[in-house]
């Protein structure tokens, strides 16, 4: 079925057809879930948080201004819901030892070597993400995974553009340092 656009479905929902909300959920669920997951780092919690965010969005649909982008508005809800959840439930920092040895560990669960390398890189990034703070995680996720511009991130997070650039730069540095450390550790481990 062709997607008729967020505004069309929102109007239908506001007119009383609540089942149209499922089309909106279907359309945005992956990105909303991904954002929640990158920030909180746990599948179960991310699912709960993404669901809560959709429910919040549904309840506040009347206050949504049709002129702006629905996805940006939804991401703002997901971002705020997840950040405040993570702040309440601060977890311990992972140690470098928590990361699986290297790419060879992923060969068994992947179909090819190339696939294994991708899996390895992806979990390495995830690991590094969990070692930076929740706000930086959110920014990295919005910038790299959701491919948002600094302007769009500003709309979602409310952080000033110059601050976003500084925080992104720091987060990037931290993550690269962590990735570097893990890779060095792996080299030592296998030498």
């Amino acid at each position, binding site marked *: 079925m062709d997607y008729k656009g967020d505004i069309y479905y929102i109007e239908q929902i506001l007119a009383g057809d*609540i*089942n149209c*909300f*499922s089309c909106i*959920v*279907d359309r945005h*669920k*992956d*990105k*909303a*879930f*991904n954002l929640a*997951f*990158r920030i909180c780092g746990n*599948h179960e919690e*991310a*699912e709960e948080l*993404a*669901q809560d965010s*959709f*429910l919040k969005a*549904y*309840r506040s649909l009347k206050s949504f201004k049709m002129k702006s982008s629905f996805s940006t508005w939804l991401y703002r809800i997901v971002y705020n819901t997840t950040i405040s959840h993570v702040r309440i439930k601060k977890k311990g920092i992972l140690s470098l030892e928590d990361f699986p040895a290297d790419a060879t560990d992923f060969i068994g669960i992947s179909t090819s070597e190339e696939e294994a390398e*991708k899996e390895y*890189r*992806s979990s*390495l*990034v995830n690991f590094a993400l969990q070692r930076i703070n929740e706000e930086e995680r959110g920014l990295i996720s919005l910038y*790299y*995974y*959701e*491919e948002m511009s600094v302007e769009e991130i500003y709309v979602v997070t409310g952080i000033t553009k110059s601050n976003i650039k500084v925080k992104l*730069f720091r987060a*990037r*540095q931290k*993550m*690269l340092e962590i*990735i570097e450390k893990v890779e060095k550790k792996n080299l030592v481990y296998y030498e």
Partner: protein
Amino acid sequence: MNNQEVCKEDLLRHFISPEKIEKAPEGFTSNVMTRVHLLETSPLIPAKRPWKKNLVPAISAAVIVLLIASALLIPGSQPDSLANPALSLFKNLKFSMPAINMSSIFRFTLPSVMIYAFIGILILTLFDRALYRIFHREE
């Protein structure tokens, strides 16, 4: 952005592929819709009207203002004052309790305004408890 920054950014891009996003689990949409339907079918709690929401603080504020105004406007020596019957009633009360000489316990004297302050606090506390009981019984 300087070159070093661009270089670092590109390096991170090498690790992150946006197409590799974590997908929402199976049944996500149906779970959300179940919760939406529950929300719609659950009996609605009528929203409190603004005047009812702020009734307790409004009454409290009004009474406090009234007390302060009466303390300022009604002179104690005025013979026909409205407060006179009440004051005379208090004066005529005979307590059978033995009088305690406070000066022997505390070697200092309290300013006379403190007595009024204590009475005021006591009255407001009782008033607050009464209002609390009235409005909580309603809920």
